[in-house]
């Protein structure tokens, strides 16, 4: 009975009026296509390290193909991700990514499956990364440590470079100009023969930085210049072998001028910041027989950040950070049968950091580790797929970590599939959490010591007679252990025929994360001048849970995507304290009162509701499109202002945020066929259409701004 069902399904695909085009369905398992009607499914590699469609993958995933990136009009990764369902981009130390309620430090950002390094306070600035020459951006939600190791707790973002050798010889030039002196040039080129090919691009970008500050005399605080380039060579010497060399550089420099009016008149503070990033990769792909696929890879990346702050009197402070990450990895894929696939591999990493905040110049802190991973995927005759994975990481500095994952995916009927998974993710402590030696003279002389430094630091101050009191948490200082999360995810995808030529697809995912061993900074001692001393401890536990829904309705010319996420986060210990009547807040009249569980808001910077709407109209001729996008985020708590140690509705919260953008574009002149367009492409857009501004909570949000972009395809 079921077999007939699926044959019908395949037939439905063949006769469907809507061609899947770029969003085609591929299965590595050579099984009959599990397709009914024109499902929208994209191929994703980050979920399993092999190509899978979003329908087959037993995990919630999001794929943004190149075409959608182009139509969105976004130039940088942060801007693109802030518009996606279930993702929130938070300000502070650059654009950080929040997935399923887990903040930036718990999410892994990769390019072609390799991690980017260089985080500030745990945040990897997403706007460092330009969106050039990509095949797609993939987001897999939930822990993926079983494949990628540390940092993959909330999810992974993988930017997949366009490696299509069919591109062959090409040369594209694209120029954009916009408000706030935005200039962006993209030059993409490629050469290719049967055995070898080269692809490269260069992207200079400059703009005025924007920052609304209560003190500042002008919202424009200085220029930022970003220069990125990438070169890629591939060589195919013979059957089943391919070598790829990739070299990428990123250079950012920014000047930040804050003119402030103080008691003694106006004065200017100038901050300078420079990022230098170099990445190299060497891959050897080899296929032996029909059943084995292997890849040997060497990856090296270096990220340097230099900052300085000065005024008329001279330099106030300088800061330097230098991270080098070296990795070698071998990965094999073996298909013993059409129903079974085994992915396995091993690797070794040397992660090293030099920082002016830890040590004297030239002193390097190193964390070497090695790992083994395994993933078995099996499709049972009843069309249910089982995914079982396990990774082992052995660190020199921390306890070793086991990361298991178990996932199931199946079909209720050809119109609806289900998936469920349980997985574990981990994050090793940051170098700063171990080695930081920081004093802030500007803010009450507070000090922060890394956990390995705290004891000697406090003892030295004690000898000097500068310690007024030792606090309880000093006695709790211990070797830091990795942070863990266990996640349970369940979801379903359903296809509908709404009307003739109108189809809809609804995706629904539930998630629950339980974080343990979380590292928090805690005061451990007080100095005689009142300044507090902080260090890091594995102290807290937290939960995040939510429900995400995504509805896509599509027609030949119109597509509509509506997404929404409900999120609840909190710490079980907080609730326990509230219930036992130990937590107070301030009542309207200024007196104190007991806090109730109803007042509790969980974790800061989390919005309970998040959603977006995208409507695209594109009548195929000329590749013309017009696109509307709105993003909504409900209010979020930013700080514990009533001082009770947890986040409740009486605390400071940022108001709900809603931004919209409009874009349109087309090619010129008309092509001879519907898929062949003229060499010119133009695109215009207006961002932040309703000019939403908030000086205090979103100081860097650009007011209404516009751009125009012109591209020319030489060949």
């Amino acid at each position, binding site marked *: 009975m079921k077999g007939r069902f699926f044959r019908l399904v395949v037939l439905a695909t063949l006769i469907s009026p809507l061609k899947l085009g770029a969003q085609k369905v591929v299965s590595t398992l050579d099984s009959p296509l599990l397709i009914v009607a024109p499902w929208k499914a994209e191929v994703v590699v980050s979920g399993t390290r092999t190509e899978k469609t979003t329908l087959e993958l037993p995990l919630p995933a999001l794929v943004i193909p190149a075409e959608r990136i182009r139509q969105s009009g976004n130039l940088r990764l942060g801007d693109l991700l802030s518009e996606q369902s279930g993702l929130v981009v938070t300000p502070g130390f650059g654009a950080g990514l929040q997935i399923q309620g887990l903040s930036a430090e718990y999410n892994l950002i990769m390019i072609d499956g390799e991690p980017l390094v260089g985080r500030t306070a745990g945040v990897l600035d997403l706007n460092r990364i330009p969106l050039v020459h990509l095949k797609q951006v993939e987001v897999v939600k939930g822990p993926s440590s079983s494949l990628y190791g540390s940092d993959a707790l909330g999810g992974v973002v993988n930017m997949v470079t366009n490696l299509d050798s069919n591109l062959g010889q090409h040369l594209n030039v694209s120029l954009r100009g916009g408000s706030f002196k935005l200039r962006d040039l993209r030059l993409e080129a490629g050469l290719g023969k049967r055995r070898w090919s080269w692809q490269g691009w260069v992207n200079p970008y400059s703009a005025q930085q924007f920052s609304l500050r209560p003190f500042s005399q002008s919202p424009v605080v200085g220029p930022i210049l970003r220069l990125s380039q990438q070169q890629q060579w591939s060589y195919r010497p013979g059957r089943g072998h391919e070598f790829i060399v990739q070299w990428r550089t990123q250079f950012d420099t920014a000047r930040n001028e804050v003119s402030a009016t103080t008691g003694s008149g106006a004065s200017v503070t100038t901050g300078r910041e420079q990022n230098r990033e170099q990445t190299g990769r060497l891959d050897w792909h080899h296929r032996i027989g029909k059943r084995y696929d292997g890849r040997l890879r060497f990856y090296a990346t270096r990220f340097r950040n230099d900052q300085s702050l000065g005024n008329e009197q001279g330099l106030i402070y300088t800061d330097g950070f230098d991270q080098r990450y070296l990795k070698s990895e071998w990965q094999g894929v073996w298909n013993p049968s059409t129903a079974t696939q085994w992915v396995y591999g091993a690797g070794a990493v040397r992660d090293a950091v030099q920082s002016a905040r830890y040590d004297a110049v030239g002193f390097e802190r190193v964390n070497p580790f090695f790992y083994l991973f395994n993933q078995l995927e099996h499709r049972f005759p009843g069309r249910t797929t089982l995914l079982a994975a396990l990774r082992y990481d052995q660190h020199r500095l921390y306890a070793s970590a086991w990361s298991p994952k178990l996932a199931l995916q199946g079909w209720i009927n050809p119109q609806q599939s289900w998936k469920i998974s349980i997985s574990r993710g981990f994050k090793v402590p940051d170098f700063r959490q171990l080695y930081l030696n920081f004093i802030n003279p500007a803010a009450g002389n507070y000090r922060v010591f890394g956990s390995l430094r705290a004891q000697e630091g406090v003892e030295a101050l004690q000898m000097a007679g500068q310690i007024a009191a030792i606090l309880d948490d000093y006695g709790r200082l211990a070797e830091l252990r990795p942070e863990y999360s266990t996640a349970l995810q369940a979801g379903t995808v359903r296809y509908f025929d709404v009307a003739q030529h109108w189809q809809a697809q609804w995706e629904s995912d539930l998630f629950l994360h339980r974080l343990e061993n979380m590292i928090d900074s805690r005061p451990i001692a007080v100095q005689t001048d009142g300044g507090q001393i902080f260090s890091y401890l594995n102290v807290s536990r937290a939960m995040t849970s939510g429900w995400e829904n995504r509805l896509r309705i599509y027609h030949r010319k119109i597509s509509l995507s509506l997404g929404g996420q409900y999120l609840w986060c909190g710490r079980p210990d907080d609730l326990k304290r509230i219930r036992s009547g130990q937590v107070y807040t301030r009542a309207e009249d*200024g007196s104190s009162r007991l806090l109730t569980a109803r007042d509790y808001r969980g974790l800061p910077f989390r919005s309970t509701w998040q959603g977006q709407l995208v409507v695209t109209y594109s009548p195929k001729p000329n590749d013309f499109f017009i696109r509307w996008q709105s993003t909504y985020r409900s209010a979020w708590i930013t700080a514990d202002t009533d001082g009770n140690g947890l986040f409740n509705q009486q605390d*400071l919260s940022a108001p709900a945020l809603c931004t919209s953008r409009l874009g349109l574009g087309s090619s010129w002149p008309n092509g001879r066929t519907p898929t062949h367009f003229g060499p010119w492409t133009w695109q215009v857009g207006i961002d932040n259409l309703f000019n939403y501004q908030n*000086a205090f909570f979103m100081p860097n949000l650009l007011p209404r701004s516009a751009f125009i972009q012109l591209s020319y395809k030489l060949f």
Partner: protein
Amino acid sequence: MNSVLWLNARFILLGFMISLFSLLNACKPDEPEPPKTESIVVRDLPADTIIGLTPGTPPTGGIPFGAGKFTFYSLENNTVVPSTDSASNKWDLAFRGTTIFTNSGSSGPGLGGAFVWNGLFDELFSISLDSTFNADNAPNYGIPTGSGRGWYTYSQAEQLVRPIPGKVLVVRTAMGKYAKVEILNYYKGGITPAVTEPDSIKYKLQRYYTFRYRIQKDGSKNF
């Protein structure tokens, strides 16, 4: 049938509880007495208000400062005590910025002392007999200084000081009497400025205490 039984059981239980409650009430020796002490609210007590900013810009300059003078207060007489009487038993609490001294130890000649009690002001009926009053002993004070340690938190991002809810300062006065104090606000007019106010406004309005207290003048520890 079962549900009827259950309903009945609930009513019986409820009735039993009501009668027990009234019985207990009846057995009480006397009605809850009105408080023996008077609740006094002090508004806008200046405490070394800002008189200028250091030259330069943050982080090295532009830091607000006051004249460095304490405001001395007598809880017993509910008045400000002139600073010429700082070396006497006439004052009970001294305020300078976020620092509050008691008339004890390194701060004054009195019998003062204090500790921070966690709970609601109105629910502190009597000070337990085994509690210890800490005399000031610089750099440690009966009312601990520093954000999150004593009575307030300071948020660097917002540049605001707020009293922590559920903190009662239990004070022994210079003459050895007992008082309970709750700091209600640190800004003029008893209203914390909005975070979006410029720093100049926050500086101008800060260091004005609003607090309430009850003092037991008979020397006992009951309020």
